[in-house]
C-alpha cells in the first residue's frame, strides 16, 4: 500500500508498504531516518518515541497505515521543531507540527567536534544541548526517544518537578546512565529556558 504523511515538516510518500510494517520500520528502513531506535519493538522501552500530531507515541506500536495524512516529528527534526516553537509559538507548542521545516533543513547541521561549538552555533534544541552538557548521553541508544519525550514534557510543563520528570520519562528505558544525569539534563534545560525568559 501507499502511505502519505508528513515527517519533520516535509510531505512523504511511502510505496509498497507491507500492511504489517510499523511506523518505526517505515521511518528507519524506507525513509532513511534511523534516529528513532528499535530496542524492543514492543512498546516497553521508548527508544522509538516520536510525536504523532504532537503526541508522544512508541512508533514501533503504530502501524504504518495509521499515519496516513498525519504529522510526525522525529529526533532528526527536533531542533528545527523546537526553534520553530520558540519563534512562532512562544510558550506553547506547534502541536500539529504542520509549521515544520523541510527535512533537508532539519538535517542541515554538520557534526561538530564538541558540544561547546554547537552551543555557540545554536543548532541544537535546548534539550539536546542539555543532554550533552549534563553527561546524559553514554551509549546514546535511549537518547533519541528520551529527547522527544523530554521536549514534549518541557513544552507542557516548563518547570517540572523531579516527580514530574520521572513520571514523564518512565516509559523510556536507559541501561547506561542510572537516569541521574538524565534528570540533570531536563532540569538544566528547564533552568536555561527560565533564564532566557
Amino acid at each position, binding site marked *: 500500500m501507499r502511505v502519505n504523511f508528513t515527517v519533520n515538516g516535509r510531505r512523504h510518500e511511502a510505496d509498497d508498504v*507491507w500492511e*504489517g510494517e510499523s511506523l518505526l520500520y517505515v521511518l*528507519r*528502513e524506507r525513509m*532513511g*531516518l*534511523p*534516529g*528513532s*531506535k*528499535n*530496542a*524492543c*519493538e*514492543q512498546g*516497553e*522501552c521508548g*527508544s522509538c518515541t516520536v510525536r504523532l500530531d504532537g503526541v508522544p507515541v512508541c512508533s514501533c506500536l503504530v502501524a504504518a497505515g495509521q499515519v496516513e495524512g498525519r504529522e510526525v516529528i*522525529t*529526533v*532528526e527534526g*527536533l*531542533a528545527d521543531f523546537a526553534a520553530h516553537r520558540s519563534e512562532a509559538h512562544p510558550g506553547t507548542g506547534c502541536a500539529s507540527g504542520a509549521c515544520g521545516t523541510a527535512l533537508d533543513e532539519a*538535517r542541515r*547541521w554538520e*557534526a561538530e*567536534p*564538541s*558540544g561547546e561549538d554547537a552551543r555557540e552555533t545554536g543548532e*541544537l534544541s535546548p534539550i*539536546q*544541548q542539555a*543532554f*550533552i552538557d549534563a*553527561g546524559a*548521553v*553514554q*551509549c*546514546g*541508544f*535511549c*537518547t*533519541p526517544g528520551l*529527547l522527544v519525550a523530554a521536549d514534549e514534557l518541557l513544552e507542557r510543563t516548563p518547570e517540572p518537578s523531579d*516527580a514530574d*520528570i*520521572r*513520571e514523564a520519562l*518512565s*516509559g*523510556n*528505558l*536507559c*541501561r*547506561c*546512565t*542510572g*537516569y*541521574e*544525569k538524565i534528570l540533570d539534563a531536563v532540569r538544566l534545560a528547564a533552568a536555561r529556558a527560565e533564564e532566557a525568559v
Partner: protein
Amino acid sequence: MGVTGSPTSINQGTRTKGGIGESTLRPDGILKVTGEFAYSSDMWHEDMLWGHTLRSTVAHAEIVSIDTSEALATSGVYAVLTYDDLPTAVKNYGLEIQDTPVLAHGKVRHHGEPVALVAADHPETARRAAAKIRIDYRELPVITDEASATADDAVLVHEGRTDHHIGHVAHPNIVHRQPIIRGDAEAAKARADVVVSGEYVFGMQDQAFLGPESGLAVPAEDGGVDLYVATQWLHSDLRQIAPVLGLPEDKVRMTLSGVGGAFGGREDLSMQIHACLLALRTGKPVKIVYNRFESFFGHVHRHPAKLWYEHGATRDGKLTHMKCRIVLDGGAYASASPAVVGNASSLAVGPYVVEDVDIEALALYTNNPPCGAMRGFGAVQACFAYEAQMDKVAAELGMDPVEFRQLNAMEQGTLLPTGQRVDSPAPVAELLRRVKAMPLPPERQWESAGEQADVRALPGGLSNTTHGEGVVRGVGYAVGLKNVGFSEGFDDYSTARVRMEVIGGEPVVTVHTAMAEVGQGGVTVHAQIARTELGVAQVTIHPADTRVGSAGSTSASRQTYVTGGAVKNSCEAVREQVLDIGRRKFGTYHPAWATAELLLEGGKVVTDGGEALADLADVLEDEAVDIELEWRHRPTEAFDLRTGQGNGHVQYSFAAHRAVVEVDTELGLVKVIELACAQDVGKALNPLSVVGQIQGGTIQGMGIAVMEEIIVDPRTAKVRNPSFTDYLLPTILDTPTIPVDVLELADDHAPYGLRGVGEAPTLSSTPAVLAAIRNATGLELNRTPVRPEYLTGT
C-alpha cells in the same frame, strides 16, 4: 621560519584545554542527540538482504532431521543455511574453549540455540521462511543444577571434552574449578567466638543493553568480507570468525559500528559469523538485527549462583576464618566461565583481612542458557554473599555493621587469599566512612513537603497502593573488591596509533585504536590524553577497526587503563620524535633545545620553565609523525590449580554504597530512596564520565537486588521471560537519587594513577539494597532479586 627570536612566555600550568582531569564533553554527543550516530542496527546498504536465525525451541535434544525445502522455495528468499553448509572443518567458536557451534549439529544444548539461517529481501519474509523449516527433535533429559550435572550417571553436556581444564575437574559437566586454600581454616575456627554461616542464591541477570545485536556483512571482490558490527573486542571476534569462514584474518575486515551498550554481553559472538556466511553465500550485503526476544537468546547472561559461606570472628570483632563454596551455572557453553570462576574464587573473601580461608568456586555445564561476562564478572555474586555475612557476623557480635567492616578492612599491603600483596591504596575503611557520613534523605519524604502525600514517592508509586500506613524504612551498607583488567597471566595488551601533522596551519592529532566505544566514554578520554601529552587542541578519533592492532576488550574496567595507557605511550613516542625534528631544525637557535626538559603545550614546544621555543606547525611543516605501539600493564600469573596461590591480578577497585529503602510490608513493594556511593578512582580523567559510570553501575546492581532476573523453567530449561515486558528493568521511576563521592588515591603503577571504574559500583549496590531491606523488615532474605512474596511471606 617562524622561530621565535626572543622566546615568549606562556603561563605555566595553563594546560591545553580539554586535557585529562576535565569534564570534556563527548565527541560523539552531537551525533547521538541528533539521531545521526550510526548504530550497528542503522547500517544500510543498497540491495542488502535481511538475515534471520532459526533457534531451537527445546533445551536439550538430538536433531533427527532438518527440512529446509519449503523455506528455500519461499519467494524473496536467497539462502537457507544449516550446519551442513558450513564451509570448513572449523564449525565451533568460543572465547577460551571452542565448544559453541556456529549452527547446531547433531544436538541442541539450550533453548534458543541457533539451528538455521535465512537471508531474504524483507525481514518479515526471512522470519516467515524460517518458520517453515521443519526440525525433528528427539528430546533428552535436561541438566539444570549441580545435582543433575554431577550425578554419576549424568548425561554429558559435552561428550568427549578435551579442553585443558578437563584434567582438573571432578566431573566433565564442570567447566572449571578453582580452590583457594591459605592458612588453616579449621584451626582458625577454633579461635572463633562466633561462627556464622549462610546459603545464598543469586538470580540470572541479563545485560539488557538497549541496542540489540546487529550488523552488516558486505562481501568483497577479493573473496573476503567487510563486517560492520557492535562488539566489545574486534580482534577477539576476528580470531573466532576467520577460521569458520575459511578466510585468512586479513580478508575479514571489521569496523566497529555504533554500540548501544554492552556490559559484557557482546564479548561472545552473536550474529557475526551468521551474517558473514549469508553474505558470502548470496554475494550480497546481509544485515541482521535481533529483536528483543531474540536478543535474550543471542548473548550470554550473568551466571546465577548458589553460594555457601561460613565466617568466624572473635568477641572483639576480628574475623578468624572464612570458608565458602560458590557454584556458578555456566549453562550450555563455556564462554567466559573459567575466568569467572577465577574471579569469584580469588575475590570471594572481599575487601577484608582473613588469613585462614578455604574457598572453592566452580562453574557447571548445564542445559540452561549460556552464561559468561557481565559487569562485575564473578565478583558480583561473591560480594552479595560476603556482605550479607558481614552483617550477620556483626549482628551476632552486637557490633555496628560499618564499624565491624572497618575493623576488618583490607588496606595497602594486605595479603589476599591468593598470597598476592595489595600494592596500591586500598581505602576500604575510608570509603565506608565517607558513605556513612553523607546526610541521610529526609524520613517519610512523601509527607515532608508538608502537603498531602505525593504517592509517586511511595513504594508502589503511581499505582497508588499505599498512603504510607505499612511503610518502613531501612538503611544498609556494603563495600566490594573488584580486579581491574584481565587476570591470571593473560597477555593483556593494547595498541594505539597516533599521528601528528599540520592541517590548515594547525597541528592536528589523530588517534587510531581498535577500542570498542560502547558508551563508556573511551573516545572522550583518548582525546583528552592526546591533548595533555601533545599540547594540541584538535584531536580526531579514527573509527575503530582491525587495520590497527588489538585494543583488547572493553571490559574488566580495563579500557582506560590499558588502551588509555597505549594512547599515552604512543603520544610520548610521537612527542619524542617531534622534539627530535625540532632539535634538528631549530636546535642551534636556542640552547634550551638541548638542555631543558621540553613539553608540548598550546600548540608549541615549551620548556619546563614555560618558555616557548617554536610552534608545532613550524616544527612539523609538511612532515607527519605516525607511530603505532603496543602497551602492556605489569604481568600477572595463573593461580595454582590446587591452592589458588599466585599473583593473579594487576589492580583492584573499590566502591562502597549506602542504600536507603522504604518497604510497604503489606504488599511487599520496595522503593529505593537513595543509593549513595563512595568510590576510589585513582585519578578521574573525566569526572563527569566517571560519575556517570558509577551511577549507571549502581543502578544495574540495584536491578539485581529488586527486580531483574531471567527465569528459567527448572523442568524444561526454557526461558520464561525473554521480553522487556517480563524481564523487569529499572525505569526512572524505580531509581533513587545517587549521590557520588569520588576519591582519587593514585595507583602508582597505572597511567596517571587511574583505577578502572566501571564495575566496582555494580558489586556493592546489590548487597547494600538487600541489607537495607533486611534492616527495614527484619527478614533474612538470602536470594536476589527480592520478590514481593519474600517480604510478605506469601
